[in-house]
Structure formats: structure tokens, C-alpha cells
């Protein structure tokens, strides 16, 4: 049995969090710019990438998952992976991804 206390890895100071928030704001601005600027064939990939990057950043830093026990990551990302899997497969049977 582990007697260890859960250490709050304060690798991030308040200033660090503000920096993350500024990056997120910048990415959001870039996302919104796709509404005004024609990204051409890069439209879908860049939006998806930006969405994923923002998602992972909030989860890893704001929700502290990067610094916490891997068990938490396992629990959360298993749910996320299962969700992605079942819903993408279900949508695929509806021929959703076929142009």
C-alpha cells in the first residue's frame, strides 16, 4: 500500500496559467479567422488540429492532468477514446465520412 501523499506539482505559477490562456486565446482568434479568410484545402485540417490542441492544453494544464498520476489520465482518456471509437464507427455506418 502506498502511503504517499498526492503531491500538487506546482510546475505552473499563476503567470504560467495566464500564458496558457493567452495561447488559447490566440488559437481561438485563428479559428475564428477561418470564417473570414479562405484557408482552401487547409480549412478542415487546421480547424481540427486547433480544436484538438486547445482541448489537450486545457486538459493537460488547466485540469493538471499532465502533472498528476497517470491513473487519472487512464480513466479520462479511456472514456474519450471509447467515445471517439463508437461514435466515429456509428457515423461511418451512416456513410457520414464519404463525400
Amino acid at each position, binding site marked *: 500500500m502506498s502511503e504517499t501523499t498526492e503531491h500538487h506539482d506546482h510546475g505552473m505559477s499563476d503567470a504560467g496559467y495566464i500564458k496558457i490562456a493567452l495561447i488559447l486565446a490566440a488559437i481561438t482568434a485563428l479559428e475564428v479567422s477561418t470564417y473570414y479568410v479562405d484557408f482552401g484545402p487547409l480549412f478542415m485540417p487546421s480547424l481540427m488540429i486547433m480544436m484538438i490542441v486547445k482541448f489537450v492544453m486545457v486538459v493537460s494544464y488547466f485540469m493538471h492532468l499532465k502533472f498528476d498520476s497517470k491513473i487519472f489520465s487512464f480513466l479520462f482518456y479511456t472514456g474519450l477514446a471509447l467515445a471517439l*471509437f463508437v461514435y466515429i464507427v456509428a457515423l461511418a455506418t451512416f456513410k457520414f465520412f464519404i463525400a
Partner: protein
Amino acid sequence: MAIIERPGSDTAPAVVTPSQTMGAVKRPVETKGWKEWLFTVDHKKIGIMYGVVAMFFFVVGGIEALLIRLQLAAPNGTILSADQYNQMFTMHGTTMVFLFAMPMAGAFANYFLPLQIGARDVAFPRLNALSLWLLVAGGIVLNLSWFLGGAADGGWFMYAPNSGPVFSPSNGVDYWILGLQIAGVASLIGSINLIVTVLNMRAPGMSLMKMPVFTWMILVVQFLLVFSLPVITVALVLLMFQRSYGATFFDVSQGADPLLWQHLFWIFGHPEVYVLILPAFGIISEVLPTFARKPLFGYPFVVFSGASIGLVGFGVWAHHMFAAGLGPVSVAVFSIATMAIAIPTGVKIFNWLLTMWGGKIWYTTAMKFAIGLVILFTVGGLSGVTHSVAPSDTQQTDTYYIVAHFHYVLFGGMVFGLFSGFYYWWPKVFGKLLNEKLGSWNFWLMVIGMNLTFGPMHILGLQGQPRRMYIWTEARAGEGFFNLGFWNLVASIGSFILAAGVLFFLINVVYTARKGKQAPLDPWDARTLEWLTTSPPKPHNFDRIPVVHHLDEYFHRKYEEDTATHTMKKVAEGEDLIRAEEEAADSDIHLPSASYWPIVLAFGVGVLCMGVIYGVPIMVLGAAIVLFASYGWVLEPSVAEPIDFEPPSADGSTKEIAPLG
């Protein structure tokens, strides 16, 4: 009130006066009578209540089945009208799955999982009570429909748009939706509770790979539940919004696709069938080694195959939709995945067989049921493999062949496993052994009844009798003596033999309660930690939290290897071990305190849901009760430490409960 237990001390338990929550409500202080049960947070009491509720609904669902079989025993049946028949098979399936099977597994899990891991309770005792009372609320809401306009009639998987407002205008489906939502939340909360319990509350030395197989299977089940329940939640919400608020989700004229319901339902529904069977697998993984007097063969394989079944179980759901028009690519993919999942299941069967091979079998009733599961589940599993072959399933689907398959795996598999558990663990829970002679009658009547009922259904299905058909005629029954009519009659007779078997169980329970003798502490020479307790266990389970060194820790405390003969020799009896524990008991043990809030909150949820059918004022009332109970709960101090599985600290000091009031 926090009861301070001081086992081994002469002083009476100290009673602490309750604090007052929100200046108005005291914690329950009664420790006797019905109030003790209503407000308890003790996992053992909650487990027993789950069992009683589940058993009640087993009988209800059984009566619904008998009515179906009475209707189909003869041509042109007049027992049930078509409409009543639809309600009957819908409620039979729904009741058996959600109000019997899951709660009964919950009963076993609640009672034995903490004991098997050496804990004193679950991680969140009040949430545990909430799960129970929410289940009760859901069961009531679901069955109120019988009295308030008719029960749901769309089949237990409630396909839309048939279940929508146009084709199912009565409130039956609304009750079904609401009852299942409530029960679903109950299970979701319970699954989080048990996962945290297993992760965090194991006795010192109990690594995951030293946990009993029953605990492992329950753990896998909780993961299945936590990730599959939200999907049916979505399905139920969409259907409810359509029925009650005019949404168009399953309105084909608006462009809706009925397959959306099917996907959402079965993404939950398939993991659900593993939720149903894995606990039974876990039970017999304890029973078979005990009565073969050999350790379980291939423990890591049994554990990993259970986990694999859970994981792959999320990838096969569309095999319920082979005839729905998915297209060949989807069908092929799911067909292969379904074949794959037979592999880990087969691994388990082989491990159980090899456990028995070379063992000195003791044919108790528990063992008979366990062996029955191995045989009958295999039969059901084989018909399942035939379903995985999509072309043959195209004929089988929606026929009685499917009904045969799932009743073999569910009755022959799951129910037999549960009954094995009853006979095995009854002495631990109630201190008395169930009568073996009555048990034999119970077992054999169930075996004969089960096979007579569901065996012919293979034939009926292959000959084309569709499911959910309320009546049959001589003309449709075909030629010859052994026509569909004959097999329907055989099945109906079988169902009554089956019912008689169940009746013998109930007789056994009553007989044992009245005339049963006190059971020895370790009647079966068992292997796992739950037996390191009195019968029934003391409120705090273990006088001293055990330190675990082995898989099958209890066995290894009784037996040591004789180096000369390389056999295991018994060095201690169960009584000796208990006496040792009592002499070394912890001097201060805290137990979680009883609480009103779980049952009040569950009541509020029930009222809130009735408001969906009967109007906003009732919803508001329900919401107010929920809010009140939630705040009361949150503000209620956790006076006693919810868990205390740590041995007393070295300097002898113990955690004090703060005196209040």
C-alpha cells in the same frame, strides 16, 4: 451519529449526539427496526436490500413470462390480447434486465466486494445508499405504468419510431424512459463508487493481481457501466424529447433515420449483456475452485479474458443490426469482431474445466449450479457464434432462435451463476446453510425446466416462428405431430417446471430462516477473504484489517506446504483465524454514519420524473426536493471517517471522532 465500535472492550458503544444540518435536520439516530434499514449506509445491509428488491422483480418478471407462455401454449390463445402481449414481453425483458439481473449482481457486489478486498465499506457509503433508493424509485416509476394507462409496449429495446408518439401513444413508453433513466443514474453512481473502492481501498498487500476473480469481474463490469450508460441516456433523452416536447429525432418524414436509435441503444446494449454475465462468471470462479478443492486454473488468463471481453464488448454492437440495412462493409466488420469475442469467453470455459479436472469434486448445490452454468452457457455461446455469421443471422434474427440463445446465456448462464452464489454465500450473509435437499430439487427442476422451455425455441426459430408474436394458429403451426404447436406446448410446460424450481428456492429460504441451524464459520473450506469474518460479519467487517500476502489469502492462512510431502496441510481452522483476529482487534474503528439524504434525494428524483408526464408544477416540486436534499447532503459533515482500513498506528494513538452537539 457516529457509533464508536470498541471490539474487545467492555464499555458500551459511545453514542454521540447528532449535529444539526442547516439548523433544522438531525441525522438519524435510530439503530433498530425499519429505520435502521431505510437510512443505513452499511454496504452489507444495502446489499441485502438490493437482493430482496431484485428477487421481488425476478418473481414479477417470471410471472410476466408465465403469462406469455400460457398465451402461446395452445393455438388461438385467449389469455392476453395483442396489446397486452406487447406490454408483457416488453416488461418481462425490461424487468429481468434492469430490475432483477443488474440489482442482483449489485447485491453480490455490494455485500462481497468490500469483504473480498479487506475493506470496511465502499468508498462513498451515502452514494451507495442513493444508488439503492434510486433503483427502487426507478422500479416503482417503471411499474406504475401498469396502473396508469398501460405499460410500455415497444419491446425491451424500444425501437423508434415505433416507440414514438404516433405508434405508442399511451404513457407506457414515457414511464419506461423515466424508470430506466433513474435506474441508469443509480448504476452510474454505483459504478463510480465501486471502481474507486477497488482502486483505493484494498487491504495492505493486495495488489490487483491478488484480488479474487469475483472482484475483478465486478471491476470490469463497473467500467462497462460507466462508459456505456451515458449512451443509452442520450437515446432515452432523444426519445423523451420527441414524445413529450415534439422533437423530430425519429420522425422519418422530417428526414430522421431510425438506425440512430438502434446504434445508440446497442452501443449501450451490447456492453450491457457483458454487464449481466460477468458477475456470474466471477461467482463461479470462486465456487468451482472451492468445491473442486483446487486453485482456479490460469488466474491471469481468467482475469485478462474478462478484461478483454469488456473492451471488445464495445466493438460488436451492430451485430444486433445485421438485418437493418447497414450494408456489407459494416456487417462484415462487426461479424468478425463478434467472432473474436468468442475467444476470451472460450478461454474462461477452458480454465473452469481445467480447474475441475483432477479435483476432488464436492457436489453441493452451489457447485451443481456452477457446473450447470459452464454447460448451459456453452450451449448459449455456441448459438451466439452462429449469430456472428451474418448470413445465417439474417434468418435467425427476430426469430425464436435468438430468444433461445439469450435465454441459454442469461438463464443457464447468469441466473445459474447467481443461484450458485446464493447457496455458496448464504451461510456467510445469514449464518445458516440453505437446505441441500431442497437445493437439489431447486437445481434439477430449474435445469429440466430451463432446457424444456428454451431448447425447443432453437427449433421454433429455425422453422421461422418470429419473436413477439402474440398468437399462433393450427394452420401456421405446420404439419405433423412435432410441429410448431407441439414445441410451443413443450416450452410452456417447461416454463412452469422452471417456475416450480424457483419456488423451491423460495421455500428453501423460508425453511432455512425458520428451521435452519447455525452454520459453521467456514463450511466450504473456502479460499478468499470474505470468509475471514463472522457469519454474518460484524458491522465493521474485520476486527483487524488483514495484511495480504497471497492470492487466495484465506486459504493460505489455513494451509501451509508440507515440505516433506509437497502437499498442503491444514494448520488452522476458520474458527482459529477468527479468534486470532478478535484477540488482535483494532481498538477504535469508525464507521460511516446513517443519513436521511440518500432516500430523500431518490424520492425527489422520482417526483421530478413524474413531472415530465404530469406537468411542470410536479417537476418543480421534485426539483425542490432534489435541491434541498443535495444541499443537506453536502453540508452534512462526514463525522466518521468514511473508510478506515488502516491498521492502528504504531504509537497506539487512534483517530478520535470529534464530539458534537
